[in-house]
């Protein structure tokens, strides 16, 4: 079976340091003022009864990627392992994909095309983890092949409670937030 790449984000481990954002920026030469990865911290309750949750977010490489469906030029496409990529040469910057994405994972690159997380497919193809995963000091990011029953990712997804972004959107993201 071919690979189906996915990622788990362990909210128990994460301290929200944003090293993931900077590791991605450095690896992918992201233009200043933009990022493919971001961190959301949610605190609920009233002092002193508070709860907090921190999530490192990025494109979930959805199994049913609306962004690809709505792309009028075919610039957004599904590459190896189910990773959604954007061909900058084909993108007109129309932003249909940004409307189509339920998770706000895309932005317009200063060169005018849509841009987003690639799961560092260039690294994955040579056997490395994505940059954010490889660097995460707390080990809160776990990358793997969802079709590989031996993978740590599959074990985590099968044994831990998790949620995904915008589950009602029907896009079936492959980024699982472990609770």
């Amino acid at each position, binding site marked *: 079976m071919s690979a189906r790449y996915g990622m788990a984000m362990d909210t128990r481990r994460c301290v929200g340091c944003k090293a993931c*954002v900077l590791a991605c920026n450095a690896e992918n030469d992201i233009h200043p003022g933009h990022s493919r990865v971001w961190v959301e911290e949610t605190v609920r309750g009233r002092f002193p009864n508070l709860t907090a949750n921190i999530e490192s977010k990025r494109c979930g490489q959805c199994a049913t990627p609306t962004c690809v469906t709505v792309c009028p030029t075919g610039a957004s496409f599904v590459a*190896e392992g189910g990773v959604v990529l954007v061909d900058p040469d084909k993108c007109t910057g129309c932003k249909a994909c940004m409307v189509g994405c339920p998770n706000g994972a895309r932005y317009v690159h200063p060169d005018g095309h849509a841009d987003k997380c690639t799961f560092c497919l260039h690294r994955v193809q040579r056997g490395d983890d994505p940059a954010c995963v490889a660097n995460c*000091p707390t080990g809160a990011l776990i990358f793997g092949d969802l079709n590989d029953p031996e993978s740590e990712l599959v074990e985590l997804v099968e044994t831990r409670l998790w949620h995904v972004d915008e589950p009602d959107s029907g896009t079936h993201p492959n980024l699982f937030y472990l609770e």
Partner: protein
Amino acid sequence: MPLTRRQFLEVGAAAAGAGSVGSGLLDNWWGMDPSHAPDPETDGEKVVPTFCEMCFWKCGVLAHVKDGRVNKITGNPKHPLSGGKLCPRGIGGTGLVNDPDRLRRPLVRTGPRGSEQFSPVSWETALDEVAGRLLDLRDKHGPESLALFSHGYGASWFKTLMHAYGTDNLAAPSYAQCRGSRETGFSLTFGAPVGSPETTDLRNSRCIVLVGSHLGENMHNTQVQEFADALDAGARLIVVDPRFSTAAGKADHWLPIRPGTDLALLLAWMHVILSERLYDAEYLAEHAVGLDELKAWVADKTPEWAFVHTGLEPDRIRTTARMMASARPASLIHPGRRTAWYGDDVQRTRAIAILNALLGSWARHGGFYVPSSVAIPKFPLPAWPSHPAEPPDMPPGVVYPFASKVLAHGIRDASIPGTGPYDIKAWMVYGTNLIHALPQPERTREALEALEFMVAIDVLPAEIVGFADVVLPEATYLERYDDLHAPPFRQPFAALRQPVVEPMYDSRPGWWIAKELARRMGLMDWFPWKDPESYLAQRAEAAGLSLEVLKRDGVVLGEREPGTTEEGLIPTFDTPSGKIELFSQQLADAGLAPLPPFTPHEQPGPGEFRLLFGRTPTHTFGRSTNNRVLSEVYDTNQLWMHAGRARELGLEAGQEVRIVNRDGAEAGPVLLKATERIRQDSVFLVHGYGHDAIGLTFARGRGASDAALVTQTAIDPVMGGTGMNVNFVRIEGVTA
């Protein structure tokens, strides 16, 4: 509630008009091979292992060089402190080396002190001037009239220079302003300091207690890695903090204590553990003295007593005491790092040490390990010239009996003429922005005004640099050799800092600057090596290491030795009794409290708040706030205030406010973060903002400086530390 990307969409749309229109609009995709993702090619043509200096942790990094520039920094998997993973600052080292505001050429001052008016000069001129002035100074006032203030690993060359010159006045804010009180408290109790990296076995701990430490925001890489591992493995977490920190968000118990009352809580915890016989009796019988005295001391320190001071419910004090006892000895009351809070900080850190002793956690798995290190013999140098003068760092007639290092603020004070045992007349300042690092910045300015001479060695034009007579621009840690690093740690290692790229602009490595000054001052006996490679090779060889291997791998591991009783260690204690001293005869003999007393501290008055400050994972001190790479994720601080208090004051979240302390010192304007995450009696700032140095073109004017508001200190009578959490402020709205 953070903005989502979607909400940003509209904002972004305006900026995205002009774009490249791809060819083949009518076709389905092709051209880009779907099975081959494009490589952004940031790995570069060369990868050099070295170690970081973005904070004091010194993680091993791999620096990637592309087109002659440091392009990307990743963790060195072989290095025990990073394990291949870096905190944000480590990654952001590219933003330091490539900072457009860097000091580029030697400078001499042309305007008044602090005006930041300089003329560029040649290295020859600058070094001649510094050496000439320092030789004159020594002739006129003696060598002890010169002081070095330093921070960072590169200071070692200048420390050698100072000793050779003949002064012992080597000061660093990292002692009296930071962790000195903690080291004293632990040394008095266990006969050993906690050190850096702290000898905490966080990874194996089953119950972690943080008292005012905001691990996770305090991004000490190895510790945070182990902290996450422990939590994932189900360790309990108790967090004592007036602020709902990141760690508090993960805690089983968050105890939002009234600031300044930690000792009451610690004594009540001891009371519960002793009265309910939850302590490790066998361990104490074998290793400790003073248990009976301690029992008597805390007999009346009930949770009900502590409630009155701390505001924490007695039941929760009991529950948490039992929780930490149930996990012993793998139970760790973390010693913290910057512990200079209220002036009774040695006593508080001693209470933490005693509590750890009751749980039997010293030299135990999941508690504190006993470190070992790779022994590297010192480079053979002649003896230093004799030093007749003691450092003048304590006011006349005052002795802090357990001060084990020079007090930086004391040296500062002795630089105000006629106030100290003798006058300090000249400063060499290496890599520490004393305007932000020392309390009472107005006194620091007064001392600076009075100096006969000051030289700054730095990378960036921080505020302190603006006061120098001569500025020597140093190469960054990515452009230079420094001495070998082999700290006490669980896994002994020796690491090399080596240049990744040539120094940019006309900056020079510290070793070169120190050696050139030594040459001009006739001190070459203490710099007998030709270049740093020959120096390092000789040191490495003396330790049985190879410089070539260090250059290739960045690090060499030593043999691991038993660090806990579980690993076969038989613990020893370097105290007068040879045991853990619950009762400290040393303190008693010095006329100080032998068991930690609770001292009530002043609380804010009506309309006031206590000013608290701390860290964000992205920044260390003021020197990283000018870093454009790091500022991508954190570019200003905000003033944290309880949402209810903000409403009472008629202030709105996100508006600008000014902070004014009792002495009239001001900071801001800064944005208000109205939040449920902090007590009503305190406000909080991330340290390192509020710069006004003209040369820091990015950081200047961003956020507010906590340091500007620390005009009051409470001095620790045990070792002279400056408690800095004793400043009270009012908050005023700024109208546009």
